[in-house]
């Protein structure tokens, strides 16, 4: 197996068509900012080239001021970790589903959808995975402003 640096260089080549914002925050890691529209094409290219596997999908809430969420697709290959960073607006946020390319992404997407309120367009299963059935539909626990309202309510009471 080639070294992590070679793997990352290969990833750069594969993704060059869609990404011009590459960063290496740490050795053996590569971050690639990508637009939601290009996500599918980029993931397909990675998959065609057999570059690593999807390790996780992380949702980040950058806060109300920034008005943005970020969805991180972590791909691992040996020691190399390549992350596709997809910035999306906080309101009416959505990303396309990559399940048709990587079926195992289904659970990650379900988690993303219920925890951060990101609509994953075309994901095969939208049932609740972790949250209780009676959890309010418009409350997303991992958003930074989650539970703020209920805290005020209790203080007022």
């Amino acid at each position, binding site marked *: 197996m080639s070294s992590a640096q070679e793997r990352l260089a290969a990833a750069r080549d594969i993704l060059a068509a869609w990404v011009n914002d590459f960063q290496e925050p740490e050795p053996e890691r590569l971050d690639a900012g990508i637009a939601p529209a290009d996500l599918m094409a980029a993931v397909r290219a990675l998959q065609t080239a057999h570059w690593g596997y999807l390790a996780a999908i992380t949702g980040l809430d950058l806060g109300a001021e920034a008005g943005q969420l970020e969805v991180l697709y972590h791909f691992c290959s040996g020691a190399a970790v390549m992350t596709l960073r997809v910035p999306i607006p906080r309101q009416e946020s959505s990303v396309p589903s990559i399940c048709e390319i990587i079926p195992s992404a289904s659970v990650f997407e379900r988690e993303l959808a219920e925890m951060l309120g990101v609509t994953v367009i075309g994901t095969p299963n939208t049932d609740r995975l972790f949250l209780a059935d009676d959890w309010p539909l418009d409350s997303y626990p991992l958003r930074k402003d989650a539970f703020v309202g*209920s805290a005020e309510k209790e203080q007022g009471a």
Partner: protein
Amino acid sequence: MSTDGNLSGKRFIVPIGPQHPALKEPGHFSFTVDGEIVTDASVRLGYAHRGIEKATESRNWTQSLYLLERICGICSHVHALAYCLGVEKLAGVEVPPRAQAIRVLVAELERIHSHFLWLGVAAHEAGFDTLFMYTWRDRETVMDILEALTGNRVNYSANVLGGVKFDVTPEIGDTIRRGLEFLEGRTHHYLEVVTTDQVFLQRTRGVGVMSLEQAETLGVVGPTARASGMIRDIRVEAPYAAYADYPVQPVLAEAGDLEARFIVRIKELFESYRIIRQILDTLPVGELQTRMPRRVKAGETVSRVEAPRGELFYFIKSNGTDNPERVKVRTPTLCNMASVLVTAVGHQLADMPMILAGIDPCFSCNDRTVIVADADGAAYTWEQIRHHGIAFYQGK
């Protein structure tokens, strides 16, 4: 049990869970059966959801360590380890080699205890209680070792940010060696049992087969992947802590059936014994801890470790304050869960507990976050739950 229309309709669904003798932790599986043959399977998780990811955001770096360690009662050490390695990387702290070696030592002891536990559970699911009882008796040996070493049977709290909490003295080293000698003998015996017992083999050989190709598509990790011939072991691929100094030989099997998973896990035990002995023989001298800043530099990091069940993935983001900005935990069970649903179809209902146990599922690991809601649907914050709890018990 409900008396709904599923019985008169075409689909006959056998629910396994949330409470069921086959499950040691809550999860819910629905198996649609045609006679004894399973034709469809689905899963619902979250019954052990405790809001830990969210909770870390309102705790400081040190508090979060103890919280994360409690994600799982079986593989508590690897959670703490993954978190510590990540935070130390963010803070730019160099951990002394002795501490790193002790971390690996505890991680391997934990793997031994976890694999023994699994062996028992899997045997029980197959209806082989004798093997179950014996493996759990022998597992006590490694539990005793862990207790002697750390003071706890589970949740050892071996890690602190910047090092480990206790030292491995020569006396403890002897205790561990003695324990390992006994366990090694037993492990040889168990390997013989699971590969030669004809009745048991009827239940494992050729059951729940996952080909290498399927394993790749399904994105399985850990021993489940290795039993299908896929080298997926973070200790080998991206050595962390002291694994670079104590290299691991990955254990592979080709068949991809339940028997292969038994063989892989049991053979991994020998590898663990070897590593532990090597560490005890060549434990580096030096400090156990370095100073850790209270605040961690802003930044993001990814930390991956090999839990007993497979790759454990941590994404940690710091905003330069006392508290983490975001801790994302992706546990191995989540990756492996999909494989259960796929391999289940076409098998008999009787094989379900075995196939389920085959990935060594850990629902607590999977679930993580809490939902406490009052009647009108408003949720409590962690702070409120704490106050509520204090007020509740003071009222008693």
